[in-house]
């Protein structure tokens, strides 16, 4: 059993490495008897990068993310998060597919949730929550109840909550998967902006290849049974017409080649 190791670094570096997380030979399974879902995953995510993990559903993308978030324990291998030394922050901020807001808390109190366990004063907490709401363009919604928000707005609150803890890495588990196409496009653009503005490291799980190519500067393809990393692609296509298409098509065939039922 391998839990997440937190290593504290200065200025975000250990020796020569500039990675935020390092996965070494990580295998993941459920229970102790069942065959593993994911085997031998080696992955270093560089500080400030935007990495997408793609693959067919059931391949273990979300499980991998949950391992990094500390919600699931890997069967073997090492998971290291190089944590910055600045006080009052969490190593990871997690954004779920369902916004997962606490319905009995107003928006701003939802954003404060992750800050409550940190040594942060009340005023500081409120200030950071409001800044995070501003980042996702929801200033003015602080006093609303979650039920008063649209699906897209709720997901923005979810992002604000994760950003408020000023994480070393932002983990996103198919965050736009349940939204309609227009809202999804909007939020994708917003996320790109947030990434550019804040320089946060982002690890993003999706089954939507267009989304991955549009957003990420690196794409990890998982496939096979048990799944492993089958491709690790640098991506700079963005939304640049033909480059975008060919990148998406190439990924699609990679996944098809490694697909087994």
């Amino acid at each position, binding site marked *: 059993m391998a839990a997440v190791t937190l290593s504290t670094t200065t200025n975000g570096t250990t020796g020569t490495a500039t990675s935020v997380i390092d996965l070494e030979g990580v295998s993941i399974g459920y229970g102790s008897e069942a065959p593993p879902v994911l085997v031998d995953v080696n992955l270093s995510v560089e500080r400030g990068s935007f990495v997408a993990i793609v693959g067919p559903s059931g391949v273990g993308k979300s499980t991998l993310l949950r391992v990094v978030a500390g*919600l699931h324990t890997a069967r073997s291998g090492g998971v290291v998060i190089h944590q910055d030394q600045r006080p009052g922050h969490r190593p990871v901020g*997690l954004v779920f597919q369902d916004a997962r807001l*606490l319905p009995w808390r*107003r928006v701003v109190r939802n954003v404060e949730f*992750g800050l409550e*366990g940190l040594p942060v004063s009340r005023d500081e907490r409120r200030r950071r929550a409001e800044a995070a709401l501003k980042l996702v363009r929801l200033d003015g919604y602080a006093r609303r109840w979650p*039920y008063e928000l649209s699906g897209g707005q709720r997901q923005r609150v979810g992002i604000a909550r994760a950003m408020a803890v000023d994480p070393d890495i932002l983990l996103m588990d198919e965050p736009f998967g349940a939204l309609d196409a227009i809202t999804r496009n909007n939020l994708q653009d917003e996320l790109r902006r947030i990434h550019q503005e804040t320089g946060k490291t982002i690890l993003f799980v999706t089954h939507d290849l267009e989304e991955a190519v549009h957003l990420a500067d690196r794409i990890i393809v998982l496939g096979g049974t048990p799944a492993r990393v089958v491709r690790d692609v640098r991506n700079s296509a963005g939304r640049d017409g033909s480059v975008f298409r060919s990148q998406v098509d190439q990924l699609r065939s990679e996944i098809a080649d490694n697909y087994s039922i």
Partner: protein
Amino acid sequence: MKTHKKIALSALGVVVFLLMWEAVARSGIVPARLLPSPSAVPAAFLTEFRSGTWQEMVLASLSHYLVGLSLGTFLGVSFGTAAALWIKWDAFQAWVVRMLRPIPAIAWIPFAIIWFGVSEGAASFLIALTVFWINYYASYAAVRGVDKDLIELGYAFGQGGLIPRLFKIVLPGALPGILSGLRAGLGQGWMTVVAAELFGISGLGMRMMEASGLLATHIVVLYMVTIALLYGVSDFLFMQVQTRVLSWQR
């Protein structure tokens, strides 16, 4: 249906009920001591009120009720939540609960008297017992029903420890269910007040018993109405609080 129309219909229902009752009582079909007429109740109230008996009985019952209700609610919610939270504790107490649950509060009267004497404590004990079980089961189900995803959210944001998990996620999430248990206990508590006082502990139940011994049925009816009103007021007040507490619900 519009609200004022609804209220008007409800009022009409009460009036028709009272008129029919009055008509039957006056017609002489049923002897007056078997069925007092509702119009005899206000006079009974005045007599009881002037002598101070009514106030005394209401206050006595209210004190049994409040003590029993708070005790039973607090313990019921605590034990129900604990059983829902810890599988081992749940298994440990499951059969004890099954054995004790079906025993009605009235069956405990002999023990209540042996332990507490014919006293306020005995009445409060019986009320607490009734209220306990209602809250135990309501809280158990409510806590079990809390969205597991929200608990996971707690772990993801460093709020997975027992105290933050309990107070920031489990209890707020279970609150609607716990409150409906509280409300059921509120009503059941008043029913037990009467039963608990029938054997001589001062209060509404005792006064009803005395009056029926003298065949003063109009006084019995007076105290029935009194209990109905007390229940109505407590339920109304509770609903006011509940609406406020659950304002986050759609």
